[in-house]
């Protein structure tokens, strides 16, 4: 049965399975309405997230505009290689997430489990690399509020501190979203192993997929802003 391909939106008419399979909740009339509502809810939530990160991007833009020289001086400490690898890792995880969603839509249980695990592995690699980067900043006394000392260009100490705060704030908030995403993926994985998801019910996979892509896109903006703009090679 699992091999039967049921194209999305082409389920046989009049053969809607019972609620145990479709997970149709009482206040919805049809599974289609339920899926539509969930997806719109997720998109709306992501708009909220855009505005949430938007506040930090605004702060970044303002300070970059006010203190360009201090900002340029900090780029020495940004590891473009680690950032670049992380970008690639996240793009891969987006691909495997998209494959997972497609597998769920086609009722393919084993590929679904496989792609979910792959996505989680990529997500974890990202966080490990991020940890390595943060750790080196800690060692170099670049954490505002804890041990900030700026020897690169002492005249910029104050302004560089604001940049490093923004760096930690933005990448930290992004990493927090990654951790939440990994939690959600764990939930999906358990449900997938229990064979809950079928072509009749894949709403959570698609919703969490959207969330995951969103978190990736945030990084796609963070990487050039924090690592590439004003980049010059370390001496």
């Amino acid at each position, binding site marked *: 049965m699992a091999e039967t391909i049921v194209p999305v939106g082409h389920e046989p008419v009049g053969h809607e399975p019972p609620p145990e399979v479709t997970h149709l909740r009482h206040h919805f*009339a049809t599974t289609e309405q339920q899926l539509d*509502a969930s997806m719109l809810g997720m998109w709306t939530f992501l708009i909220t997230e855009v505005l949430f990160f938007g506040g930090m991007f605004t*702060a970044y833009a303002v300070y970059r505009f006010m203190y360009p020289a201090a900002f340029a001086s900090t780029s020495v400490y940004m590891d473009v290689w680690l950032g670049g690898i992380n970008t690639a890792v996240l793009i891969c995880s987006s691909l495997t997430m998209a494959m997972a969603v497609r597998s769920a839509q086609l009722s393919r249980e084993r590929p679904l489990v496989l792609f979910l695990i792959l996505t989680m592995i990529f997500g974890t690699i990202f966080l490990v690399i991020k940890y390595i980067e943060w750790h080196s900043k800690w060692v170099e006394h670049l954490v505002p509020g804890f041990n900030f000392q700026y020897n690169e260009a002492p005249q910029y100490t104050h302004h560089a501190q604001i940049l490093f705060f923004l760096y930690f704030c933005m990448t930290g908030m992004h990493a927090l979203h990654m951790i939440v995403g990994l939690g959600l993926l764990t939930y999906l994985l358990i449900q997938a192993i229990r064979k809950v998801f079928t072509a009749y019910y894949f709403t959570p996979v698609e919703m969490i997929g959207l969330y995951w892509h969103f978190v990736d896109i945030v990084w796609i903006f963070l990487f050039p802003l924090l690592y590439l703009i004003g980049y010059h090679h370390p001496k």
Partner: protein
Amino acid sequence: MATIVQGTPEAVAEPVDYLNVSHTWKSWLFTTDHKRIAVLYLISITLMFVLGGAAAVAFRINLLSPEGVFSAETYNRLFSMHGIIMVFFFLVPSIPATLANFLIPIMIGAKDLAFPRINLLSWYIYVVGALFAIYAVVRGGVDTGWTFYAPFSSTYSNSYVLAAAFGVFIAGFSSILTGLNFIVTVHKMRAPGMTWSRLPLFVWSNYATGLIQVLGTPVLAITMLLLAFERIAHVGIFDPNIGGDPILFQHLFWFYSHPAVYIMILPGMGVISEIISCFSRKRVFGYNFVAFSSMAIAVLSFVVWGHHMFITGESMYSSIAFSILSFLVAVPSAIKVFNWTATMYKGSISFDTPMLYAFGFIGLFTIGGLTGLFLATLATDVATHGTYFVVAHFHYVMVGGMVMAYMGGLHFWWPKITGRMYSEAWSKFSALLVFVGFNLTFFPQFILGYLGMPRRYHNYPPEFQTLNVLSTAGASVLGLGYLLPIIYFLHSLKYGARAGNNPWGAAGLEWQIQSPPTTFNFDETPVVTEEAYNYGPVEEIVG
């Protein structure tokens, strides 16, 4: 038949409704019924309203004499807690979380909101946020004003800023979830035939509110978070000593907090549309204009925040732009006022309590709105900024407008929510008290502001005393006007007459179902075949 039911109520089995379906604590605390969640919200925000009101009573007593009763420190904490509680824990959730939560699914013919469990979650989040705010009060309060301006809040204040800011941060998520739920519900849960152009205007205005909640509140959240980082770790982002920019805090704060004004007033405008139409027995004049003016307000509200910063270091050119845009936002608001007035023209008007509140709303909101134009004008703002003129202006909008509408809505839908009628005489009397008390409280503040009395001071020159005493006297009357409904509403729960399904003879799906409604509102999904407010020619009703 009816007399038998009234004579021996015990003998007849009461029909099952959402209230008597179960009486356990669990059935309330784990409910996903939008109507029960609305009731939970109603109780919570009423408690917060009483708390915020108590702070207002205290500082109005202080202002009876020019020297003041409390220290400057205490006074600062009183008005700050009043502002924080009233804005974030009463006004923002007021109509959306209670009346709209209860009514939107019913008005569009749905069994519930799109996400019932998220709806319940939003209430729990609200409660946690409120507990943080209450904790801040109990520990000694906050003295930053409700605006939390940096660097005072982030560096210099030694009050409980973090607890209060964290409460605001958390409560914001409950607001976001409510807005998100409304947006999805209005898009996806409408009954067959309930087209966008047939939606009650109350639904339109709460939909527009939802958009603002979803787009604005996250910016407040990140602002509060940055403020917390600054206060805890002194990272410098708002600290001018090391190049941080306090003005940035104000930009971020007002990017939410101006639109928040419309989170607070738009749902009230929706209530007024419903009430005016019902008690004039007429379709709302220019339905499309009223509906789209809600959307226009939602959009424009995001581009006017700079009018709070005319004298705080904003460039002259931005100020000019923000001034013009602020004038623009008055247009859709005026459209609404004109259309309500036109709705009443040649209508068959009756003067029930909800309508009295609606009259109050139109008059007071108009004054509040027009004095807003004084403040949007650059030159007059320089003179009146930071005076009682501003205080009077936004209380005319928030209290004279929103709280009036909230009270009107409560009186309008109370029979639907509880199945009971309240005392007609007492409710009219208290509506009168609210109107008189409100004007007596706040009109003198326009004059005080015009004369130059600054806000947020615990003392003042003796020549301002007469007006301040008048204002405090008004506040006492107003307080009584708010206290009475709490009493007669509670009284009605047990002793009120049965309201019946449609005590006002109103149009709208909510009046066609049982009072109080059953858990799933409708036995069968209704099919809508007519426009909203189909009251027919006035003559027929009168005859």
